[in-house]
Structure formats: structure tokens, C-alpha cells
């Protein structure tokens, strides 16, 4: 078997492992000579010692091979006596080989340890390609995270897998309440009016990618993304821009994340049980410079001293509703139990798993007025998965994947909310509760998620050069949200209740086919296909208020009830054709086009067409290339994709309202635009990737440039014309560009020590080019989308600015100054050093979204048993408003302003500088003064794993691993608010950001034991 043929086996088995297994398992009989022996052993990960089921083991010179079974074991029968080279390959790992001497009638034992490989040009990816494709054929960048990369890490959901590991991916932890979703962006922002979140697929089925119902009390929301059991995941592929996502069409400009779950492998049932026990904790809360042990009243609510505040401080007096522990914070208990089994036979195999987990947050919610313990913030969840594969014919592979999860989340009122716990505790006596903040916790805020995803993948290879693939499936999420203020609640004395039940259903039908042939020495692969997505959302919101008395409630317990309903269906679909030409298996040119229709397009718009083109050149395969360098691929890609407008944006409509005490009425809703089409993002990227120093260093770099034109802007209609709403129009333009690079080095690779170090850096700088005549769009909280302006002399000279980061600083009069998408524009003091009252002028300070993300990861393995793993990540270039600092300053309870408060109390206002007053004088403080650069570096995770020697284990146990893990362990920042990642609205699909009294991300510690049997 030549290296090329091995590659084809690898590719084929990645696409169709069952088919390969059917061919290979038990069929290694040649040559049928009497003088033969066997070769057997186990294939494991060099990183953590875990077996690698499905690894391809082959002796090329004999043209024989086999797949490792479900516990990583392999057996090659009838191997002629003599010395042979046994090669082992698996996607995502470096190939290894060993010389094995076979003695007739005996078994030669050879184990293999495969090292995870960041880049393998022979690795197969399927996301963004018409079918499966080898990495060497692809012209765009793609991040592929294999199980080995996160298996030992403290991963509680998919976002944790991506964070700090996937190049060009930003995962922001918005808050610390257990169950809250993260914000995920690929290559920053490129859309003004729509979500910049990526599409998400699981085993070929598109799932709801956005958060569910946003709680206006908890100011957080769950994300269906997080329902997926991370222990079920085999790998994740991420493609980031329009150049890569063209084949996904109208809704894919924000990128695509595809999750592949584990599959069965032939063999007896192989069980794996993992038990996690741990705790969530927070420690001191508040700005880093605050040394007061009260932690703004959260760490100590029975505080009676004056701490470190000069002159004493009554701001955080003892709260009579403070929990018995004396603090609003506690260590929350985490427990998770995961059981899985995989196995199968020649033509059918399976993977099944079940998980149950309960995780407490860090709030000590105390007891209510009746002495009953209040519910604890946290979540309880369980998941079930069954993945089954069977081969009804030699050339057909059918996979059935189904998943169900249930999650109960209990929230604490939080964030920008008059009834939020932190808002009232942080404000000391200047709050809504008369400083009895425990009353707030009598409000119940909960939600229940039920999530079901099921799909069928059918792969048919009727001939060696033709294949067809169908993915069809359903993603169904039911989200039920409850919010209740009990009868007698201090803020709404008669109580009220809200119930919001929503169902989100996505249907996927996806076909792709390809036909390969040789055209005059050029390898041709013609691909074609089509997709259809149907998105159905229904929801019922009920509200009841004014209860007659205490007790458990339903909506109709209220004297007054209200209801509303949401019910919509949108369908999108399209088809594509693509031609890939390959020359010498080293140069590849791909051309394609996709044509889309969408429910939300205007009636006069028609269909939309998106082109793509890419090339890749494996220059290291050329004779002139230094043979000892390694591999190097040059690549470039161009493509377009889009974002569709909303449901009725193209149509003039009126909405039903009530007036005159409940009589039916109508009000203008949407003006309508029959020419409305999608906004289009055109992107090109160029880069290279490869390995060197015997594959010990892997590297990747690309530059991308995105241009979103026909951008959908909510253009205000002429208010004096009466139709005062906004109307989406294809009038804007936004650009976004950046660099992405990573290098992964294997510093030490021996039998006793393995040490890998990874560095990654990505930038994304967006700028607004055109707003279709609008000058400015206020997204809220002074987050603006601003049209370009001409640089004035004042801007150039900085006369009106203090030089503290204005976007246009240094501009030349007359040139065009662009603003990022979006930008903080706030009032800032103009005479900071003057001993006088502050003078203010608006300055645009900088972007609200990080412009650069960098990561550092390392893995150290000792004796192939003890593994240390750490991931650090930094983000920066952006600004963040601390609403907490501003509002607390207004109430004279912000610790960083203590000296100014004292000076004011002493009647020394006239001795303060304008800057001191602008920051800390409650009578003149401005929000903009507490809008600051929010650069940070966080130690996202660290873990130590120990694989227990097999000799210590009873025979019934194959392997056991013990892990000690920590998450969100350290933060380094100069930001003076509560946390540079905190966002008051959680994972809400909005562009603006602001920190406003929401619980910052918390710290977790886990002890995990995995037993395989």
C-alpha cells in the first residue's frame, strides 16, 4: 500500500468507518502461507493514554490493514514471518511506524502512542466542503479540535471546548450564574443589524444557534448549544468567514461550527464511567483595587466595622436579611456522572451515553421569612444519546443519531434590574430594598429546557468515483420560563407570575453528491447539492398578577391575566455546484456557486447567488522544496455568503394593539420594502500552514478581508412622514479584516516526557464604511454605529480630546475617519488637570468588541501517565462601560472614589481637579469616565491527570484516570469595573456591551475519575 493509498483509506474511513471496517476487519488473509504470525497491540493517545478506537493500522508493503477496535486494540493475522514496518494513522494525530519482527506461529506485540497533531494535510474535514475533503485540497482555513485536545480539560459545555483553543474564535463569558450562555463570535462583527453568531450543526443537522428566551430578571439566558454533552463529542470543526461558508448560503456570514459526536466501533461493549465532583467559588468580588473585605457587601453582609475605608464607612451596614453564613456567596457543589458504551459488529455498531449532573452556583440564597430555604441558583440536567450505524449494502452507510437533554435552571435576579441582587447589595443603603436585600430572593426565576436532536446520515458510494450524502433531521427545543413574585413580595405586594413557553423547531434536508474523474491528467471532482431548512417558532407568554393570597400559583391565580403568542415559519434553501481540479495531488483549484431563496426576501427580489473560488498548493510536495523541512501548503480563498432579513421586513404591515381600555386597534408596524434582499459578505483570505522539524512544529497563518455590502441597516423612515419605525434597507457597508496565526510546538517528545506548547493570535478590526445616509445608530448605552466623518482640524490637533484613545487621533484634516462596529462614544472630561469644574465633550473611545485575542496553551506529560494541561487566553483592544462604577459613584459607594468622597465631605470640592470630579464627584460624574479599556488575560483552565497503572486495577477494569481540574482561575486586567468580560444581558443577540451589576464569571474546581471497563 503506497502512502497515497493509505491516505485514501484514511479519507474513506473518516467518511465511512463502518464501510472500511466491513472491508478490513477479519479479512487480512494474504498471503496464506504456513509461515505466518500475528501482530497485535493497542493504539493510544500519547497525551493521555486513552485508547484510540478506529485508528488505521497497516503494513503497506503487504497491502494489509485494519481498524483498531473500540478499546484501541488491533490484530493483524497471517503476517509473514520476518521484519515489517507497521504504520498507524488517525485523523488529528501524527502518523507513527515501528519495525516489528514476526515469528511464525507467534504473536508480536507492538503498542503505539499517537501524538495529537495540530495540522495534518491528510486529515479529512467535511465542514464547508461539498463532501469530505482532505485538508490539502482546501483553500480556506479551518479549525479542527479533536477529542484529544479537550478530553482532559475542565469542559462543561461546547463553549468551553472552543474557548482558547479554536483560532479566530472569541468566546466571552458574560456572567457567573450557572447555566448562562456565552457569546461566541468568529472573526468579530460584520453585521450591523443581525446576529454575528455562527451557525451550528451537529452531525449534519442544523440546531438553534441563538440563545433562548432572555430573562429580564436574571438578565441571562440559556443557550441550546450548551445542552450537548461535551463527553459525547469526537471533534469540532470551525470555519470562520464567507470564503469558507459560501456553500451554507444566506445565513452563514457569521461562520459555521459543526460538532461531530462519537460513533461506534466494532468490538465487544466498551464502557466508560466518569464521575466529576467539585465546587464553584468566586472569592472577593469588586474591582481589583478594592481591598475592603466586604466585597461591596457581597462577601460580607454582616459587616459592622469600617474596614480599610479611611474615616469609617457606613455604606455597607449589616443587612438583617443576610444569610446565616454572613455572606451572599458560597461554594457551590458540582456533581456529574457520565456513562457511555460503544461497540458493534461487522455491519452495525453503536455509541450510547447518558449523563446526569447537578451544579450549584455561588449565591447563598438563605432562608425566606418562613424559615424555609430558598432555591439555590444552579442547574440540574440529564442527557441521553444513541448513535447507530449500519451498512445495508456494501456501498451504503446509514447513521442514525439521536439526542435528548433536559435542563432545569434556577436563576437569581441579576444585572440591570431594580430587583437584582448585586444591584441592591452593591449600592449599600442607597438601594431599592431599604437594605434588606434578601427580600429580592423571594422572587422565583427558573427555566426548563428540553432539547431533542435527531438525524439520519446516508452515504452511498455506488462507484469508486461517485458518492452521495443525505443529511436529514430535526432539532427541537422547548423552553419554558417561569418568573414569580409571591404574594406579599415587597416590591409587588400582590404578586405576579409570568410563564413563557416557546418551541423552536428546525428541519434540515441536505443533499450533496460528487463525481470524480481524471480529465487529461487533471483530477476533477464535480460536486452538486441542495439544502432546505425550515424554521418554526411558536411561543405563548402568559402573565397573571394580583393574587388573592399565599401559596403555589398558576397564571389564573392572578386577578388580571394577559397573554400573547408568537407563531412563525420561515423556509430557506438553495442549491450549489462546485468543480475542483487537482494537479499532481498538490495543486487544487475550486470554483463554485450557490443560489438561494428565502422567505424573508422581498417579492421583487428573487434568488440570490453566491460565488466561491479557492486554491491550495502543497508546495512541500515539489521536488525543489527542501525535503527535510516538513510540509507547507499555500492557500487562498474567495467567497460570499449572506444574512437574511427578518420575517416581515419586506412587507407593509400593521400590528394589533389595544386602546380605550381594551378595545381592538391597529398601529403601524413595518413600512415594507419589496426589493429587500440579504446583506452579502464578500471575503478573501490568503495564508499558509504546515509542519516542520519532523512535525514537531505546526503553524498556520492567514489574513482575511471581509466586505459586507448591501448591508441591512435599519433606516429610520422620515418621522415627519408619520411612519416612524425603521425599515431595513440594503444600503450599508462594513469592512472587517484581520490576521490569524498559531504555532504549536512539541518541545519534548520522548517516552518519559512530552511537552507541547501552543500560541495563537487573531485580530479582527471592523469599520463602518456607509450607513446609507444615516450618521449614527445608537444601539443603547452609548454603543454607537457611526458613519465615517471627515477629520477636522480639531480632531487632528486633539484640541477637544484628551488623547485617550479617540479613534481619529492623528488623522489628517480632510481625510475620512472610520469608526469600529460598534464604538463607545461618551462624554469625557476635557480639562482633566485643571482645578476646576469638569468640561465635557463627546469622544468616540474605541470598539466594544475585542479586536485581538491571543492564547497560550501547554501540555506536559510525564511517563505517559501524569499530564499537566493549561490554557490561558487574553483579549483586548476594546472598551467597556462599568455601569456599576458609575451608578455606585453617584451613590457615593464606589471604593475607588473613597478619597474624593472624603474630600467632598470635608468641603474641599474646590481643591479637586476636573478629572477627580469627573470620575468621583456624584454631582458631575459621567458614564464615559467609567468607560475604560478592557484588555484582560485569564487563565481559563488548568488540570493535572493521572492514568492509573493497569497493574493496579482489577481485571474487570481496562483503564482508570484521575483528574484535578480548575476553570477560570486567574484574571489580569487594568479594567476598574467588576470584570472585563461581564455583560449585563448575558448571551442576548445584541451588539452592545456593558457591565452592569451582573455576577462576574466564577471559578470552578473539579476532581474527576474516569473508569473504562
Amino acid at each position, binding site marked *: 500500500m503506497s502512502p497515497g493509498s493509505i491516505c485514501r483509506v484514511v479519507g474513506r474511513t473518516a467518511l465511512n468507518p463502518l464501510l472500511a471496517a466491513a472491508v478490513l476487519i477479519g479479512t487480512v488473509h494474504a498471503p496464506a502461507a504456513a509461515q505466518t504470525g500475528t501482530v497485535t497491540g493497542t493504539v493510544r493517545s500519547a497525551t493521555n493514554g486513552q485508547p484510540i478506537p478506529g485508528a488505521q493500522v497497516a503494513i503497506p508493503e503487504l497491502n494489509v490493514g485494519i481498524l483498531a477496535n473500540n478499546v484501541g486494540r488491533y490484530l493483524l493475522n497471517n503476517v509473514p514471518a520476518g521484519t515489517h514496518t507497521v504504520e498507524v494513522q488517525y485523523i488529528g494525530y501524527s502518523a507513527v511506524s515501528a519495525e516489528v519482527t514476526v515469528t511464525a506461529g507467534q504473536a508480536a506485540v507492538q503498542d503505539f502512542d499517537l501524538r495529537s497533531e495540530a495540522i495534518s494535510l491528510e486529515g479529512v474535514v467535511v465542514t464547508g466542503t461539498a463532501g469530505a475533503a482532505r485538508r490539502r485540497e482546501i483553500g480556506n482555513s479551518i479549525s479542527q479540535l479533536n477529542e484529544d485536545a479537550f478530553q482532559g480539560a475542565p469542559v462543561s459545555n461546547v463553549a468551553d471546548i472552543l474557548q482558547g483553543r479554536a483560532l479566530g474564535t472569541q468566546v466571552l463569558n458574560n456572567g457567573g450564574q450557572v447555566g448562562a450562555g456565552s457569546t461566541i463570535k468568529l472573526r468579530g462583527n460584520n453585521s450591523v443589524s443581525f446576529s454575528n453568531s455562527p451557525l451550528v450543526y451537529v452531525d449534519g443537522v442544523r440546531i438553534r444557534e441563538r440563545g433562548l428566551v432572555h430573562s429580564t430578571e436574571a438578565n441571562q439566558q440559556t443557550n441550546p448549544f450548551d445542552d450537548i454533552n461535551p463527553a459525547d463529542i469526537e471533534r469540532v470543526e470551525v470555519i470562520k468567514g464567507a470564503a469558507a461558508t459560501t456553500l451554507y448560503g444566506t445565513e452563514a456570514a457569521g461562520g459555521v461550527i459543526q460538532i461531530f459526536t462519537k460513533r461506534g466501533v466494532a468490538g465487544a461493549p466498551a464502557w466508560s464511567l466518569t464521575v466529576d465532583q467539585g465546587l464553584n467559588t468566586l472569592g472577593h468580588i469588586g474591582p481589583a483595587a478594592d481591598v475592603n473585605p466586604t466585597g461591596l457587601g457581597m462577601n460580607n453582609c454582616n459587616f459592622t466595622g469600617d474596614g480599610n475605608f479611611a474615616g469609617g464607612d457606613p455604606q455597607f451596614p449589616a443587612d438583617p436579611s443576610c444569610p446565616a453564613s454572613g455572606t451572599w456567596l458560597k461554594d457551590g457543589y458540582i456533581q456529574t456522572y457520565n456513562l457511555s458504551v460503544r461497540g458493534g459488529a461487522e455491519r452495525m455498531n453503536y455509541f450510547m451515553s447518558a449523563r446526569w449532573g447537578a451544579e450549584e452556583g455561588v449565591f447563598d440564597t438563605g432562608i425566606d421569612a418562613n424559615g424555609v430555604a430558598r432555591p439555590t441558583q444552579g442547574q440540574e440536567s440529564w442527557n441521553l444519546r444513541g448513535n447507530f450505524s449500519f451498512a445495508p449494502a456494501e456501498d451504503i452507510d446509514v447513521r442514525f443519531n439521536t439526542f435528548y437533554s433536559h435542563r432545569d435552571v434556577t436563576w437569581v435576579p441579576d444585572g440591570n434590574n431594580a430587583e437584582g441582587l448585586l444591584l441592591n447589595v452593591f449600592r449599600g443603603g442607597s438601594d431599592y430594598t431599604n437594605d434588606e436585600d434578601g427580600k429580592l430572593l423571594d422572587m422565583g426565576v427558573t427555566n426548563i429546557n428540553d432539547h431533542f436532536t435527531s438525524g439520519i446520515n446516508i452515504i452511498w458510494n455506488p462507484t469508486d468515483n461517485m458518492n452521495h450524502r443525505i443529511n436529514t433531521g430535526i432539532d427541537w427545543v422547548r423552553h419554558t420560563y417561569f418568573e414569580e413574585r409571591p404574594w406579599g413580595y415587597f416590591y409587588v405586594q400582590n404578586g405576579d407570575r409570568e410563564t413563557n413557553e416557546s418551541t423552536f423547531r428546525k428541519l434540515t434536508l441536505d443533499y450533496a453528491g460528487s463525481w470524480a474523474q481524471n480529465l487529461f491528467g487533471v483530477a476533477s471532482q464535480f460536486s452538486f447539492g441542495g439544502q432546505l431548512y425550515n424554521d418554526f417558532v411558536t411561543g405563548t407568554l402568559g402573565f397573571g398578577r394580583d393574587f388573592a393570597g399565599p401559596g403555589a400559583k398558576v397564571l389564573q391565580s392572578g386577578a388580571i391575566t394577559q397573554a400573547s403568542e408568537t407563531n412563525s415559519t420561515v423556509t430557506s434553501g438553495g442549491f450549489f455546484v462546485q468543480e475542483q481540479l487537482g494537479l499532481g495531488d498538490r495543486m487544487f483549484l475550486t470554483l463554485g456557486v450557490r443560489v438561494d431563496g428565502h422567505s424573508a426576501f422581498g417579492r421583487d427580489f428573487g434568488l440570490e447567488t453566491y460565488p466561491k473560488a479557492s486554491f491550495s498548493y502543497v508546495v512541500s510536495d515539489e521536488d525543489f522544496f527542501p525535503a527535510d523541512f516538513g510540509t507547507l501548503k499555500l492557500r487562498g480563498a474567495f467567497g460570499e455568503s449572506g444574512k437574511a432579513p427578518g420575517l416581515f421586513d419586506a412587507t407593509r404591515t400593521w400590528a394589533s*394593539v389595544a*386602546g380605550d381600555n381594551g378595545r381592538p386597534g391597529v398601529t403601524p408596524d413595518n413600512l415594507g420594502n419589496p426589493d429587500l434582499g440579504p446583506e452579502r459578505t464578500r471575503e478573501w483570505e490568503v495564508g499558509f500552514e504546515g509542519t516542520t522539524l519532523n512535525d514537531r512544529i505546526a503553524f498556520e497563518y492567514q489574513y482575511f478581508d471581509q466586505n459586507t455590502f448591501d448591508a441591512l441597516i435599519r433606516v429610520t423612515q422620515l418621522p415627519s412622514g408619520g411612519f416612524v419605525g425603521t425599515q431595513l434597507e440594503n444600503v450599508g457597508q462594513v469592512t472587517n479584516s484581520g490576521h490569524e496565526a498559531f504555532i504549536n510546538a512539541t518541545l519534548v517528545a520522548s517516552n518519559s516526557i512530552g511537552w507541547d506548547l501552543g500560541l495563537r493570535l487573531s485580530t479582527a478590526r471592523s469599520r463602518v464604511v456607509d450607513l446609507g*445616509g444615516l450618521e449614527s445608530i445608537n444601539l443603547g448605552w452609548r454603543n454607537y454605529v457611526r458613519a465615517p466623518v471627515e477629520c477636522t482640524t480639531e480632531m487632528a490637533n486633539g484640541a477637544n480630546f484628551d488623547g485617550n484613545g479617540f479613534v481619529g487621533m492623528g488623522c489628517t484634516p480632510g481625510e475620512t475617519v472610520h469608526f469600529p462596529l460598534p464604538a463607545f462614544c461618551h462624554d469625557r472630561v476635557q480639562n482633566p488637570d485643571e482645578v476646576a469644574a469638569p468640561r465635557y465633550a463627546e469622544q468616540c473611545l474605541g470598539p466594544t468588541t475585542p479586536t485581538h485575542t491571543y492564547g497560550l496553551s501547554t501540555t506536559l506529560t510525564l511517563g505517559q501517565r501524569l499530564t499537566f494541561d493549561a490554557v490561558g487566553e487574553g483579549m483586548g483592544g476594546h472598551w467597556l462601560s462599568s455601569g456599576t462604577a458609575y451608578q455606585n459613584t453617584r451613590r457615593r459607594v464606589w471604593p475607588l472614589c473613597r478619597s474624593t468622597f472624603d474630600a467632598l465631605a470635608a468641603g474641599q470640592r474646590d481643591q479637586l481637579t476636573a478629572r477627580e470630579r469627573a470620575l468621583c464627584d456624584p454631582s458631575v460624574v459621567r458614564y464615559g469616565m467609567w468607560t475604560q479599556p478592557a484588555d484582560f488575560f485569564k487563565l481559563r483552565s488548568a488540570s493535572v491527570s493521572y492514568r492509573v497503572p493497569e497493574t493496579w486495577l482489577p481485571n474487570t477494569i481496562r483503564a482508570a484516570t484521575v483528574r484535578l481540574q480548575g476553570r477560570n482561575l486567574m484574571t489580569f486586567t487594568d479594567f476598574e469595573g467588576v470584570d472585563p468580560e461581564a455583560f449585563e444581558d448575558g448571551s442576548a443577540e445584541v451588539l452592545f456591551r456593558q457591565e452592569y451589576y451582573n455576577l462576574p464569571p466564577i471559578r470552578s474546581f473539579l476532581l474527576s475519575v474516569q473508569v473504562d471497563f
Partner: protein
Amino acid sequence: MKTNRTSRTRALFLGALVAAFASTGCDESIFEVKNPGRILDDDLNTSRGVGSLVTGMSADFSASYDDLSFTTARLSDEVVGSGSYFSTGRYRRGLFDSEDSNGFWAGVQRARWVAEAGLIRMRDIEGFQFDGNAETARAYLFAGLANRWFGENFCQTVFSEPYSDESPGPGGETDTGDAMERDAAFRRAIPLLEAAVRNGNSSGQSDVATAAQGGLAQVYLGLGDMQNAVANASKVPTDFVFAAAYSSNSGRETSQIWNETHGRHEISAWMTLAGTVGAGDPRTPWTDCSDPSSGCPSGNGADGQTIHYRQEKYPTRDDDIPLVKGTEMRLIEAEAALMAGDLATAMAKVNEMRARHGLDPLESDGTIGTITGGDGGGANMTSMSGWDILDRERHLTLWLEGRRLWDLHRWNHPHLDGGGVVYEATVARRASCMPIALDECQVNEKVSSLCFSV
């Protein structure tokens, strides 16, 4: 057998493939949007829908008028901002620029346009008897009162469609999109309100006709035409009230003023004229929440520092905001009398109004005087001159009804010169009207240079 089974499997697979795409790829309706609940524009052109159109006019009026009342109360120091809204920090200092104006400009323009354009639609609806119809009368009333609201609170007016040279409005006006002085809104209101009077009377809707009569008195006052103002005011009984409707039926119908004071604690009467006069005045009732027996959830406002004197003029979500009142008519008559130098008539009208509220009559010091202002929430608390009495009585009578800012402006009130309650104004001259909105300037080239920021 194996070969046959494999062939059948392949055939089955192929069949499924073809069927799946045939069923989805050839039907145009597959891209149809399905979202019940929206009403298409053409569907409103029916006589059965007129009631919903006119109720929609009332609903759009109410939906924005409470916001205007809440905000102008802060801007004119009728109340003190006691909350955490970013805007409160600006308004209580007298700052108000074109961006601040966006929502209020949109609100009044929608209320005006919905009524005016609705009238055009109603006239053309087949089978609908336009003239002499009660719904027609109400539509004219809302159109007129929306223009009164516009003229009283905005520094300038702008009208774009729907009236053109070919299809002029009820008063023969055309809409050009140019900026005009605020009087244009008052003038525009006159024919609309006159039509409301006519149609109200002919359809037996006397309350609509009386409200329109009061509206005419208000707009003539705005134009400085005191003769016509008094003539129309005299037709409105002292106990008459026509109000914007609010209800707990739905969130949109709920009064924002109630929500900002009872639901939240964003404004307080503390240190204002109403707070100084005392809670006992039936026109300005409030509760001292710092009194532990008050039953308030908190003694202070949302800023944690300002004592919460919670207004009780609108103690429930359902309380309507008066738009036309007979008591105001008496004060218009009093003002006309003062302008004519007739102090006795003025005091008689003031006391007629006070009697309606069960208040003792006031006795002037015998001078007409001028409005002097002071530290009683902007009013002179001790002066008993005719104008200072009128200043206080209008303030208290029209409290939280969205009218005080207009009085400050038209009287060039001394409080505008840097006055403040609790917090000092940071500008020499407080904003006394809402400018053209930034949203208008961004899309209307004719006014693009008229917006500003402070």
C-alpha cells in the same frame, strides 16, 4: 439473494433521494412566510375596520403621551429625578438635545400621522359614512390634539406627507418637509378640531365636541389669540375632563407615570412645588415613602438618596392623563383677564377652578405683577400677585399632564435661567422645548443642519 437485496436497497435509496427533493424543490409556496398576527395594509380598507383604526389612533396617542408627560415633568422640574436613568441626569440639569428628542418626536409624529392619514383612508373606504360619524369625530379630535401636543412641546415642527398640492389637508395645508415654527402645528390643529366639533355635534358625541372646543382654546392660547381662546374655553364646563386612556389591560396601555413612580421610583415630588405645597392639595397628591407606615417598598428613590414623595395623582395603572379640562379653561380665562389688566376677573376664574377642587379661594395682593419665580420648585411661594398666583395654580392644576414645559417656555419663565431643583442646572438657559429629532435630521435633507447635541 444478497445481490438482489443490495439492488433493492440501492433502488430504495435512490427513490427516497428523488422523492425528498421532488417534494421540496418545485413548490414556490415553500418560501412563504407564515406568521399570523400581522395585518396587511390593504386589509384595513374596510368599513368594519374603521373602529380599529380610530381606536388605534387613541392607542398611539396614549402610548406616547405618558412618556412625554414623564419626561417633560423631569425637564421642567415638576418632579425631581430620583432614579438611575441616564436621561434623568441630563434632563434635571436642563439638558435636552436632538438625540434626546428622537423617541418623543417619533411619538408625536406617529400620533399625528395615524390620525391624519387614517382620516384620508376613512374618507375613501367604500360603504363608510364619513361625515357626521362618531368615529370621524374622534379621529379629528385625536389629529387636532396631536398637533396641539406637537406645538406645545417642540421648538419647531416639520410635516412631510401625506398632504400635497393635489390633496391638501383639512385646512388646505400641504406638507413640504420644511422646518416651521411651532405655531404651524397650532394652525394645523384648528381645522381638525373644528371638524371634530362639527362631527361630534352631528353624531351626538357631545364629549368629543366639548373636548375639541377645549382643544381649540388651547391652540388659540398657543397662538396668542386670547379672544378665540376664551371664546372656546367658555364652552367647556368646569367639571369637564377628556383624557388619554390608560389601562391595565395590556402593558402598552399601562400609564408610564404610574410605572415610574409606583412600579419603579424614578421621580419624586420632593422639593418641588407640589412637594412644598403639601400632599393635601387634591390636585397634587403624594405619599411620603420615607414614612415607615407608608407601605412603600423603599423610602428613597432609585438613586438611593432622594426621598421618594410618590405621586398619587395616578395611583393605578389605569388612571387616565387629562388632555382637556374645564379647570384649565378657567385658568385660560384668568390668563386672558390678567393680560387685559382685569385682576378681579382673573381671581374669580382662579377661585372658580379652586372651588371645583374643594380648595379655599385665594386673595391676591391687588397687583397683577409678573411671574417672578423662586425656590419653591421654580415658583415664588409667597408672592400673591396675579401672575405668580396663575403660575402656581397652572403648575398644580396641570401637574404631570405634560403641560408645564410649555408654560415655562411661553412665559419665558425665570426658572429657565439656570434654575434647578435639588440639582443645579449646568447650563445658563434650560431647555424649554424639544428640538427637531436627530432621526429627522438624518433622513430629511431640508432640516439636516438644525439638529444639535449638548
